[in-house]
């Protein structure tokens, strides 16, 4: 972080051209190639999003007849159709996704915080073994887990339930890894020791002293896990058959599957896809004002 600041201010402010505002260095010529490259990259990434925004405004007949990037007149109609589809099951899916992702990420953050703190602060037998075993979980392909998880859930009579999608995702090896890094960087050992001197119990030290210090890192864990659960497809695809419990990804997929026989459903899929993208994009736009994306890769100020 500091290196960027240093390089920015190192830009020479000498040779102020006449006519520029006093106290401000002159604008320097933009680096053309890097700027152009980044703009092309941004356009590429925004293309499908721009397309879905425009396509959602088209009525069923306009979708197949007018130029792709020409806005249509059917947005209100598409919304009404989507609301009416199977008594508003679409909003049920959105609600389910919010529940799976919100509650799942909250539980996951709590478990990660406890484990990460324990692994960072305490010295105990088997610490590295525990950490390595937990980390190995991140390497397990979801499929080798998902099928036996389904069969075991079936044994416990839990398939096709909210728990079957929620519980397998609570333990996030990546979350534990991040929480451990943050705890090691943000919670000084002498503060923990001082808490003990004052006679505070271990749990109290954790909740009152360490947890507040770990908050920025835990926000990252929460967001990462929220996105991971919101975007998950395989687990609900395997676990659920009752579409009242579907998350939005699975709901839209079944809608698209039916759409291959009845293209009239395409406008519903497109409008639904747009509305499914909005919450997460909004979340990121709001959050990135006070949350650095850099935290995602585990960068900690030391």
């Amino acid at each position: 972080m500091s290196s960027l600041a240093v390089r920015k201010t190192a830009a020479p402010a000498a040779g102020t051209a006449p006519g520029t505002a006093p106290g401000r260095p002159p604008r320097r010529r933009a680096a053309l190639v890097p700027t152009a490259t980044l703009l092309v990259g941004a356009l590429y990434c925004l293309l499908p999003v721009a397309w879905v925004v425009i396509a959602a405004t088209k009525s069923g007949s306009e979708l197949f007849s007018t130029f792709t990037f020409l806005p249509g007149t059917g947005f209100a109609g598409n919304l009404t159709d989507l609301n009416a589809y199977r008594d508003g099951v679409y909003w049920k899916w959105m609600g389910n996704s919010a529940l799976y992702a919100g509650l799942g990420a909250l539980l996951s953050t709590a478990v990660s915080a406890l484990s990460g703190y324990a692994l960072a602060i305490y010295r105990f037998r088997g610490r590295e073994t525990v950490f390595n075993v937990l980390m190995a979980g991140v390497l397990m392909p979801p499929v080798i887990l998902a099928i036996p998880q389904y069969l075991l859930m079936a044994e416990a009579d839990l398939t096709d339930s909210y728990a079957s999608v929620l519980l397998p995702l609570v333990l996030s090896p990546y979350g534990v890894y991040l929480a451990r890094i943050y705890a090691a960087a943000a919670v000084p050992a002498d503060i923990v020791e001082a808490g003990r001197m004052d006679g505070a119990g271990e749990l109290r030290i954790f909740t009152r002293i360490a947890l507040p210090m770990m908050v920025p890192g835990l926000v990252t864990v929460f967001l990462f896990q929220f996105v991971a659960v919101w975007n998950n497809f395989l687990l609900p695809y395997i676990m659920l058959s009752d579409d009242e419990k579907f998350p939005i990804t699975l709901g839209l997929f079944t809608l698209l599957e039916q759409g291959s026989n009845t293209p009239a459903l395409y406008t519903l899929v497109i409008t639904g896809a747009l509305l499914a993208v909005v919450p997460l994009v909004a979340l990121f736009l709001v959050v990135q004002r006070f949350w650095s994306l850099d935290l995602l890769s585990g960068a900690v100020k030391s």
Partner: protein
Amino acid sequence: MTGARRIRKAYGVRGAPYLFLLPAAVLFALFFALPIGYAMWLSLHKVQVKGLGLGAGARDEVWAGLENYTDAVSDSELLAGALRVLGYGAIVVPVMLGLALLFALMLDTERVRFAPVTRLAIFLPYAIPGVVAAMLWGFLYLPDVSPFYFVLVRLGLPQPDLLDGGPLFVALSNIAVWGGTGFNMIVIYTSLRAIPAEVYEAAKLDGATPLQTALRIKIPMVVPSLVLTFFFSIIATLQVFSEPTTLKPLTNSVSTTWSPLMKVYQDAFGKGDIHSAAATAVIIALVTLVLSFGFLRAANSRTRQEAAR
């Protein structure tokens, strides 16, 4: 402080980490260890039908040894799926990481404009579920609604079918590249920013051009994060499932067994043969572990030691 109290407190400090790790341990046992063990057990067993196969107890699970494994390995469809995914991965991983590195380097250039906006735009696809991304691109590939076809038709150029044959690989790879570039760009950009400023000052004094600085200093210094992103990209690519599954309703060229993972799903839930599905899943897991860890070991053991601290 009494002796008893001191003992209790000492025990508290000693026992606390185990208590704190208990939820993770229970979850790990239930949702990682148990399923993996069960999958291995299943892969070594098969169903034997007694008599006419009627009534309860007529279907027995008996020891199969490595039979399921030899069947899976000699299954031509699984092999074809593995080759398809290798071809797909050979496009996705280099292109995605190449673009991520390129964008990260460009972001780190002096006098670059619009950096915050473009950085956010390139990162945006990370927030979009793979299923929805595959849908959006799927529609953009459909001749009836695609702007690409609109332009090709107007210009009188040939219109390749993007959802068949060779172009299908490019079409599927593009979805993964689109979705993954931003995240990897952030990881690489973060480590670029961690390079001390003095390094650049020295390069400047030596008269290095921005290109030379990028090639000789920046890229060598971000090798550890390149290794890490490569490692995770290999794992993600070998497990491709959502994107081809989502494109399936739009084209007949994506079979139900297009990728090895789709075959596992098809075996388990389409054919109801959980034993051979388990064997195939174990094989995929082993191949993933061997490839990803083999790569990691070969690349460097230094970053792992640092990460473990």
